[in-house]
Each structure stands twice: as C-alpha cells, then as structure tokens.
C-alpha cells in the first residue's frame, strides 16, 4: 500500500478546512487489477445520492438507484502504459464508504474498455451522464454508452472479478484529428462535443448526430491541450502550447479573442493545459500562465477579457484548473445577521509541483493547499456533482479522493438558483424550462403519465439493477432457457457451404444489442445544418422547377460555328446534360432527371464522365436515369466535343464538382466537415445557376464558360422590362429531345421542318414511353414541349398550344395563347404556360378547366428589375414563381376568387355564390379546382402569396432546433422545401444559442414557423404542412405557449357535438384534422404544464371516437 503524505495547510483557521478522507484509489487498483493497469485517471464522478437527485429527471429513474454510483473512468497514461489505451470505470461507493470497500459483493471496477488503440488522454462524462467521451493518442474520440440489454459479461480467460459489471459500448468513433487527442469537452446540455489535438485544431462535433462535424477551429499554432465551454454555451475556450488562450464564439465558430500576454513568459511545456470556466460564467481560468517569472493560473474576466488577476503560489506550471460545478453562498449561521452575501465559486488548481490548491473566489488566499499529494505532476481534476468531493489524478498512476464539508465550502446553490443567475446575467439559461419546478407537479392524467414515462424510456436511460438483470437476461432467450438452447445448439444451428465449399455456420443470436438511439436527451437540439439541407437535396417528391434561361441559348448559338444555322436542342446534351445530370444524380439518382444521356463514349469528356457515372450508379443501383439520344444528336455532340476546347473542360469541372457532392445524398456516412463543404458547393452552384433540384427541369444550357457557373444568377435570368413585361421566348430549333421522367422512362422528341409530301413542312412530335412510341405531326414549328406522365403538350410558333394524352390522343383543340410562349410546364394533368407578355395560365387537362386564366405577373414583378428565375407547378396545379430577389410567390386560385362567382367544378353543375373569401384554401386534393368566371375589378392581383423569401430575417433568427427531431428532418421535402432550399442554411447560421435575446428569438421563431405552416398550406403540400405544424406545435410545447397551442387544438378538434351551422372543415390539405390532433397529443404530453389541455383533447377525441 502506498503511503500518501498529506499536508494540510489550514490557511483559514476559522474555516478549519480539513480533508476528511483522502483515498488513494491506486491501492484498490493494485488489489483488483491483476493485469497491472499502470495508471488510472479518475474524472468526473457521481456520488451516489447526489447523482440520483440530479440525474433522476434526465435519465430513467430506476437506473441509478443502485448504491453503486458511477465512478470516474480511469485511463492509462501515455508514459507508462505502452499502448494500452484502456478506459476503466470504477465504482465510487467503495471509495466513499469503507464498508463497501470491504464488502466483496460490491464490485470495485465496473467496466474496462480497451478499444482505444493507444493511450487515452482524456475522458469526460456528458452532462446527462449517459455518455462518456474518451480521446487518445490514436487520434480517435470514442463515445461510450451504457448498454442496457445485457447483464454482466465475463471476459473469457479472466477470473471472475475482472468481469465487466456494467457494459459500456462504443457507440461512435469520431475521426478527424490527425494527431493525438488531448482533451474533450461536452457543451452544456450536450449539444456539442469539442475535442482538441496536437494537430493544432479544435473540432466541434454534433453530439446529437455523431460523427457530424460542425466546425473545425483553426488558429492555434501549437498543440492544443485544453478545452472548456462557457457554462451558458456562448463560447468555448482553448489553450495551446503556442502560448495563447483563444476564445471562440459558438454563434459562428469564429475567434472571439486570443489572449497571449499572460503566457508570454511561459517556457517549457506541460503535458496538459486544462483550463476551466467558472459555473457562473464570469471567469475563465487558464492553466500555465506566468506572472513575474512565477507560475500562475490566469483569471480572465468575461467582461472585456481582462487579465488582471491570477492564482499565485504554485512552484511549477499549473497543469489543471477545474471549477466546482456548484455556485456557493456563505453558510448562514444561526443567530448571525443574515447578510445577503454574494454567491461565489470554488476552484481547484493542480500543478506540476505535485500539489493541489483549492480556492474560493470570495477569499484572497487558498482555502487549502495539499503538497506532495503525488509523486508526479497532477494530470486531471474532477469534482463530484454535489461539489463536495474532488478526485485528483497524477501521472504517477494514482488517484486521490478528497471530500469537503459544507462548512468548508458553503451552501451550494440549487440548479434552479444557478439557472436564475444565468438568466439574470445572460438573458437565458440553458435550462429552457426549469425542470426542477415541473418535477414537483402532480401528474393528473394516467395517459400523461404514460407519455412522460415513455419519453423517459425513449431517452435511453440506463439499465435496471444489474443484479436482477443478470439472471434474467442471461437465463432466458425467447422463453427458452439458455440450457435448452445449448443442448440443442449443434442440431439447431444452420450450417451451409459457401460457393467454394467451405463450411459456414450461422450463429445463434442469444441477445440483441440495443443500438441505443443517440438522439433525444432532454435538451438536445439539432443544429439545422446539413440535415435539412440534405433532405432538401434528396427530396423525391418535389415538384418541378423550371429555370428560365434565355441568355444561354444565345451564347450557345453564338459560340457555334456559323455553318450550323440553328442551335438545336438536340445538341444541348453535349455539355449541358452532363453537368446538369450529374448535379441531379448526386441529389437523387432515382428521381426524374432531365435530358440525361448515354453517349457512345468516343468523346473524351464523355468518357471521363462515364466512369463517374458508373461509379455512381453502382452506389445507387436501380436508378436508371439514362436515356438514349437520337443518333443525330450524338453526331452533333461529337462535333462539339471535338470542336470546342473549353467545353470539355467545363464538363470535367462540373462533373467533378458534382462528384464531390455525391455524399450529400447520404450524409450519414460522411464526416460533417465534408458535408458542410458539400452543401456549400451546392449552395454556390445554386447561386450561380438556377437551382437544380430533384425534379428540376432546367431549360438552360448550363455549360458555357466557367464564369457562368459561378456568376450571379441574375446574369442567367431573364430580365423583364417592367412596363411591358416581355419574357424571353425560345427560338425555333430544328430538333430537340426532352426527358420527361426516368421512371417510367419517358421522353419526347421533336423534329421541326420535316419535309412531307407536296413540299409541305410539318413538325413531328414523337413520344417514347417505356419503349412504346407514338408520333404525331403538327403544322407549325414546335417551339417548346413539356410532358408529365399524364399529358404531353407542345407550344408552336403560331401561338398555339396543343395537348395530348399519354398515348398521343389530342385532348383539346389547339389553345390560342395571347402572346408567344415563354415557358411551358406540366405536372400531372396540369399544364402551365407562361407567355412572353408575362401572363400565366394553368389548365387542368383532365377536367378540362382553367385553373389560372391569363393571370398577369405584373404585381409581383412590377417596379423593379426583378426577373423570374424559376417556375414550379405543384401537384395540385398551383404555380409558384421564384424571383431573382429570392422571393417566391404562389398563385392561390381560391383567394383570387374573392367576391367572385364561381363554379364548384364539373361534378356539381350550377353556380353557387360564395359570400366570403376562403382564407384557407381547403382541401384542394378533394375538392375539384374551381373555375373562375369573373374576377372582381378591385382585387387586381390579390392571389399572389409570398411563400418564401431568402432574405427573410425571420428565418435567420428562428431557433427551433429544440423542437426538431432527426426523423422529422427526413420528412421535410416537398414543394415548399424545393422553393426554400436556401432557408435551411440561413437557419444554420442562426440556429445557435443566444444569437439574439431570448424573447426576440422566441417571437421570430414563432413567426417563422407560422409562416412556414401557412406557406405549406398555400402550396397545398400536405406532407410539409404536417411537418411544419408538428414542428410548430412542438416549439409551442417546449416554450410553453399555451394560448396558441390551445387554438390549434381547437381548430383541429372541431366541434365535438355536430351542429349544422358549423363552418368547420374536417380536413386540411387532405389530412384529417383529428388525426393530426392525435399526432399532436404525444407532443403535448411531453410538457407537464399542458396536462389539462392534453386531458381535454384526449377526452374529446375519445368522445368522438365513441360516437
């Protein structure tokens, strides 16, 4: 047994600080660990009772009832352990209680994890206690979670006491650092995990979505050896060997300040530089600073980052500073005047001189200094959660535990009080809701109780009592005892032969592994970045966007040899399809892609692309997005490919561009940093060119010059002179091919000026659908064509619009357009035509009605040099215009019928008068589109609704991450997402804590979410409506907005007792409102303060169901 010399310096006689118990845990180690783990570091730990109290609300209640509290994990030290990399979790109760130490039934070591390939430098518990992060010389960070499914396991070949009592599994391995990981730190509330390394960087990981990287902080020019988060999450500080301490903002992950002055004199290096932030957030204390050649721990004030004070006294460099997690106030003595004293913090400082000092910020001298505690430098310090115990570990391989009494330190403030301090100082405490207050509320409704319970279970709380679980889990599988299984195992096990004749045994699974969902701890939030953007890109159901692009054909034909009279669209695929398709293929290979091609790859750039393409299609099998081209087109293509030098390069460039973007489609497999880059490139692309999305229908020739790829979109967009509103028209082309959809494969071929008998010139329209072809001829030259699975339409030079069925039957007599066609577009049975005079018409071919009749774009384009950049037609025939200023408008037919007489459609003939405008366009999915007969003269254009605005400041400030679930993000695709693509990234910028004062943030978030709900409603995108509504509701629940929530519920519920005069509609955009309400209920059930509302809705739904 190692003797520990403890020398107590009782600085303050009145307080009579004493270290009541000091344990050398190394003793335990030697007793228990036969394999001679060299050095053990103990870090954070939870003392039994306190742990229970504090973690209770955060994790499953029953989990930590065990008197075996968590101990800090132990790790091997670099210098002694060769390359062991073992992390050990110790039981604290034998440390704290002598009886337990003697009791052989109390396990001392709970788990050993030896996954690290090299020595571990740091281990940290998450604030919730659910996860453990470890970082080591193997450049890896591992995140551990307790596996609950299984009882203790024995390690083969080891004696019983080495068995792991608890099972901790590595749930994530984070790879990014190129050097040893020196420190890791969980942000308050576990939203982020930071790690620093000798590669001079700090990496911020998304703790909700490992292994996503949110940011890599570069700026240090030396080994980064310590990290600490601001307790309110606004900053993170790092200290490095480059004699600087840097503070970074979490808002934008940029450098806030770099402090060098106190470190100027620093010579030599320490193994670690673990700095610490005070729990009240006011002070940051560095490791290893120098003042007048004396080693100090520099105190840095949050206000202005002033460096006026330091902790002096250690004889060698300070290696570790660690603030007590508690804020204390002076103990009120009976009888003494109750002077309101300032709360203060407590800080422990460990040094290379092997001594430990503990300071209170209200005292000028240390509370206690312990010399010669170890043989070697102190490596890390950890306070117990109750703030009264401290664990110190040293490079010599031992760990000391010291505990204090409240008389010595003071009265710790409760979490509530602490959060109040944060709130008063910084506006918002991280504890969004003081859970402590709610935990005292009585649950009145059994259903509510269930939801609460389920919620807690869902958080993946830790296991039931080990002892019980052991027998139960190990004993029985599927009701069959393990013994039975073993008896019959040989007979039962499936044995096959592989192709090469080898035996292959399918093992019998005797226990499932809980793959533990990593998501929702209580306050866990999802930064919007990546996830949403990713979904936007992978949206399959998005409607078609139609970039208008007039300048390109011009430039295209200009660059053509003059011998070729017309720039035919058949030639277009040469460069265009390649780049365009590759863009599309990256986002959704399965989705409809525009004029894609297979080219006999004789042409060099094609070849290059080809290989990429095959690679990609390998990655996503079953995405046949190839179409054939007419031989003539190929010929032409070849000519161009050979004739033009710059073009192939462009092709290469753009395809390589898109190649990088492949991962966007499957972000999970990628590191976040890369992903972000990817998203950025996508964004850049979008800026440069009309947005390409899943079902984008680019009409442009996107490959011209590299400049145009990155050029501002406006240059590509058509410009409309305000007064006349003349939109560009497609010029006549000799032939072109248009891919309508890839699944089923459908494309249209147009050939103009086919000489027919008698010198008559005809134009031929050919449509091929899954091999079935039909043809027809038109008398006028075809300018543009469009198609969907239901209809094919073409616009001709003579201003006629012809519509054919999918089988080639003419559906309507030619429609005469008021002015030449600019853009034609089809979705489902809807046909949209935008004329050069900027009027828009939409027909429903199926019902043969006009949905939008010659609506002018005047009102949305008026007055400025705005241009239309994209057009989109939703499944319900609602046109959406994306303008160059980033705004998107949709035309709402039902609003335009304000005060108008209208037909309700073909199935109910006879006019009916609508007295009032319908504020909500209800259920277009069910009701037939209305036919306008007249429009009121004074509502010139009331029907254009703003659905999206890129520059919307609301989106910038909205922070609803706490309401967002990862699975929700996956659902958010549809017209709105397509239109708003960019909003997601602006959200990323904004979605940081404390970017704006909390109240403002709440308001903007609400406003943003509400506008999203309304926009989804207007677009009649039921899917997105549901998504945003749920998100909105969740936000309301989280933030406690009762009235709005109640109103929503009321609307969704409708009248319980049916009255004939009721105006209530039971569906909204095709969704049953009451079904929606049922979905909302679990959300509402999550917040105890809404239990009344919950109960009310529940009961009324029950009544309705019983009816």
């Amino acid at each position, binding site marked *: 047994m190692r003797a520990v010399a403890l020398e107590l310096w009782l600085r303050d006689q009145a307080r009579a600080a004493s270290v009541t118990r000091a344990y050398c845990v190394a003793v335990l180690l030697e007793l228990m660990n036969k394999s001679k783990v060299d050095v053990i570091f103990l870090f954070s730990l939870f003392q039994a009772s306190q742990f229970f109290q504090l973690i209770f609300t955060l994790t499953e209640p029953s989990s930590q009832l065990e008197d075996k509290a968590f101990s800090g994990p132990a790790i091997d030290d670099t210098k002694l352990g060769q390359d062991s990399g073992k992390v050990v979790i110790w039981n604290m109760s034998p440390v704290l209680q002598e009886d337990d130490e003697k009791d052989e039934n109390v396990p001392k070591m709970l788990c050993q994890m030896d996954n690290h390939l090299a020595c571990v430098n740091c281990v940290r518990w998450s604030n919730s206690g659910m996860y453990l992060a470890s970082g080591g010389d193997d450049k890896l960070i591992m995140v551990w979670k307790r596996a609950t499914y299984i009882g203790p396991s024995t*390690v083969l070949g080891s004696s019983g006491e080495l068995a792991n009592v608890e099972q901790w599994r590595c749930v994530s391995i984070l790879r990014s650092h190129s050097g040893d990981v020196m420190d890791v730190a969980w942000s308050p509330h576990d939203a982020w995990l930071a790690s620093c390394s000798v590669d001079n960087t700090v990496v911020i990981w998304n703790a909700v979505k490992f292994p996503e990287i949110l940011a890599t902080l570069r700026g240090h020019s030396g080994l980064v050896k310590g990290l600490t988060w601001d307790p309110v999450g606004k900053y993170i500080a790092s200290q490095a060997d480059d004699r600087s301490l840097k503070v970074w903002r979490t808002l934008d992950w940029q450098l806030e300040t770099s402090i060098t002055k106190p470190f100027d004199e620093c010579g030599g290096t320490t193994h670690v530089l673990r700095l610490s932030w005070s729990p009240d957030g006011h002070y940051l204390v560095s490791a290893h600073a120098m003042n007048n050649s004396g080693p100090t721990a520099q105190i840095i004030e949050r206000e202005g980052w002033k460096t006026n004070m330091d902790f002096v006294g250690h004889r060698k460099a300070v290696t570790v500073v660690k603030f007590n997690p508690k804020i204390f106030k002076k103990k009120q003595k009976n009888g003494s005047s109750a002077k309101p004293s300032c709360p203060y913090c407590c800080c422990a400082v460990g040094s290379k001189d092997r001594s430990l000092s503990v300071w209170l910020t209200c005292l000028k001298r240390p509370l206690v200094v312990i010399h010669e505690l170890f043989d070697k430098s102190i490596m890390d310090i950890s306070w117990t959660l109750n703030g009264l115990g401290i664990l110190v570990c040293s490079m010599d391989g031992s760990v000391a535990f010291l505990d204090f009494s409240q008389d010595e330190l003071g009265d710790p403030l409760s979490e509530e009080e602490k959060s109040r301090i944060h709130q008063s100082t910084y506006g918002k405490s991280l504890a969004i809701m003081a859970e402590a207050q709610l935990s005292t509320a009585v649950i009145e409704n059994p259903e509510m109780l269930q939801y609460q319970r389920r919620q807690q279970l869902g958080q993946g709380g830790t296991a039931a009592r080990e002892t019980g679980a052991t027998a139960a889990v190990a004993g029985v599988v599927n009701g069959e005892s393990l013994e039975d299984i*073993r008896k019959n195992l040989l007979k039962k096990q499936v044995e096959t032969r592989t192709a090469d004749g080898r035996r292959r045994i399918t*093992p019998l699974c005797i226990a499932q592994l809980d*793959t533990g969902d990593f998501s929702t701890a209580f306050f866990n939030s999802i930064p919007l970045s990546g996830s949403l953007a990713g979904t936007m890109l992978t949206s399959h159901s998005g409607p078609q966007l139609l970039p208008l692009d007039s300048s390109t054909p011009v430039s295209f034909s200009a660059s053509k040899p003059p011998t070729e009279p017309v720039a035919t669209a058949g030639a277009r695929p040469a460069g265009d399809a390649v780049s365009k398709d590759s863009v599309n293929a990256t986002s959704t290979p399965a989705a409809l892609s525009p004029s894609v091609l297979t080219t006999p790859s004789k042409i060099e750039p094609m070849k290059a692309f080809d290989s990429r393409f095959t690679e990609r299609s390998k990655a996503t099998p079953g995405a046949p997005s190839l179409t054939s081209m007419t031989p003539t087109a190929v010929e032409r293509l070849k000519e161009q490919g050979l004739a033009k030098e710059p073009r192939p390069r462009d092709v290469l460039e753009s395809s390589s561009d898109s190649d990088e973007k492949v991962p966007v489609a499957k972000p999970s497999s990628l590191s976040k940093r890369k992903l972000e880059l990817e998203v950025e490139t996508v964004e850049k692309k979008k800026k440069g060119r009309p947005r390409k999305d899943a079902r984008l229908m680019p009409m442009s020739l996107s490959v011209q010059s590299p400049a145009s790829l990155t050029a501002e979109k406006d240059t590509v967009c058509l410009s409309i002179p305000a007064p006349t509103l003349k939109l560009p028209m497609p010029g006549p082309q000799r032939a072109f091919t248009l891919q309508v959809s890839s699944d089923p494969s459908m494309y249209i071929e147009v050939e103009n000026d086919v000489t027919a008998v008698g010198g008559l010139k005809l134009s031929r329209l050919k449509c091929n659908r899954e091999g079935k072809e039909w043809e027809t001829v038109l008398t006028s030259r075809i300018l543009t064509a469009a198609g969907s699975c239901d209809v094919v339409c073409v616009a001709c030079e003579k201003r006629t619009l012809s519509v054919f069925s999918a089988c080639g039957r003419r559906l309507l007599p030619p429609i005469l357009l008021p002015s030449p066609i600019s853009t034609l577009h089809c979705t489902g049975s809807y046909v949209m035509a935008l004329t050069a005079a900027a009027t828009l018409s939409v027909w429903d071919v199926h019902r043969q009605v006009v949905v939008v009749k010659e609506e002018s774009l005047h009102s949305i384009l008026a007055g400025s040099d705005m241009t239309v950049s994209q057009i989109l037609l939703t499944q319900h025939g609602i046109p959406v215009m994306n303008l160059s200023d980033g705004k998107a408008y949709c035309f709402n037919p039902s609003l335009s019928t304000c005060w108008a007489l209208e037909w309700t459609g073909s199935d109910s003939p006879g006019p009916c008068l609508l007295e009032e405008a319908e504020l909500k366009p209800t259920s277009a999915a069910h009701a037939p589109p209305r036919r306008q007969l007249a429009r009121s003269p004074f509502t010139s254009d009331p029907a254009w609704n703003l659905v999206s605005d890129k520059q919307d400041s609301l989106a910038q400030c909205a922070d609803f991450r706490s309401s967002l679930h990862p699975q929700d993000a996956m659902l958010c695709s549809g017209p709105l997402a397509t239109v708003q693509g960019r909003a997601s990234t602006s959200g990323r910028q904004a979605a940081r804590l404390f970017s704006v004062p909390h109240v403002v943030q709440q308001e903007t978030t609400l406003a943003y979410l509400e506008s999203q709900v309304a926009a989804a409603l207007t677009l009649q995108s039921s899917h997105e409506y549901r998504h945003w509504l749920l998100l909105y509701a969740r936000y309301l629940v989280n933030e406690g907005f009762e009235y709005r929530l109640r109103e929503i519920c009321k609307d969704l519920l409708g009248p319980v007792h049916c009255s004939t005069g009721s105006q209530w509609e039971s569906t909204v955009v095709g969704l049953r409102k009451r079904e929606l309400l049922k979905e909302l209920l679990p959300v509402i059930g999550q917040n105890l303060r809404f239990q009344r509302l919950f109960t009310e809705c529940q009961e009324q739904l029950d009544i309705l169901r019983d009816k």
Partner: protein
Amino acid sequence: MAKVSVLNVAVLENPSPFHSPFRFEISFECSEALADDLEWKIIYVGSAESEEFDQILDSVLVGPVPAGRHMFVFQADAPNPSLIPETDAVGVTVVLITCTYHGQEFIRVGYYVNNEYPNPELRENPPLKPDFSQLQRNILASNPRVTRFHINWDNNTDRLEAIENQDPTLGCGLPLSCTPIKGLGLSGCIPGLLPENSMDCI
C-alpha cells in the same frame, strides 16, 4: 476487444476418446454488425517442438453477425494420428482456437490437452507404437489461455496507420506479436513478448 469479444468457450464432451471430434461451444459478442464473416479455426499442435506438425483440424466461416450476443458449436474431426510424431502422441500438447476477420487474427484461445491411456496397464507400459484407439483426450478446459490482438475492423486504411506495433506489410494480417504465442503453454509465457492485451489467468 474491438468489435467482437469472445465471452466463453465451453469444451463439450470432455474428456473423450482420441478419435472423437472436438466440440467447442463458442459464445461471442459483437458490438456492431459485421460486413463479412468471421473465420474460426481449430489448430491441433502435434508437437511442441515444431510448428511443422500443426494440423488445422477445420475452419469455418461464421456469419452473418449482427450486433448482439451469439453462440455456435464448432465441431472438428480429431487430428490425423499419422501426422503426429510418435513420441508426442502421449502426453501434453495444445489445441488452439483462433478467429480472424478479414484475414487478421484477433483472438487466440489455447487449451492444454493431455492424451493418455485411461487403462492403468497401458499407462504403466505404453506400447512402443502409440495405440490411438486406446488414447483418451483430456482438455484442460478450466484454463484457457487467451490472447487478443488489435486488428483493423474497418476497411479504411487510415485506421491501419493508427495501429501501433503492427507490421503493416504483413500479408496475412497476423500481427507479429502472435509469434511468441505459438508454443504457448509449453514454453510458458514470457511476459515481455506477450501482446499487451493478453490475459494471463493461470
């Protein structure tokens, strides 16, 4: 440890006649689903002196392996007596169970095996030419010798670099450090040569 850890190996039908097959019931735990099969081998060490007499009794592929605990029985025929040196037929030798993933061995479990004549008369006066039909095989099941190796569980190469003390040029993927284990049990263990991770439990 890594992705697969062996929880238990139970020696079935022990002791048994020399010619009866070996049977091991192996339980292992997998922390994350494996893309490929595990390969298990039973190696019978014919003579302590030389690896030449090692016999691979059998090798099986085990898969698919999802995350969780699994077990299977590994049965292999008895060693071919003609390949065993006559002098080593009776006495103590070793049987090894190894498991490899992607050609890299990550665990090796060794057992002492004692072959002797149960018949006291034969034991007293063993025939010059060993009578294998009379021999009884007794595996010292209570004392497995377990050696674990860090291997590259993923396909990406960057991880390989992270592995210390492993010769990257090894074609078979066997860490160099296994070599000293070869004559395990007989030569005793030399702590300095053992891979760091090995558990000494004798």
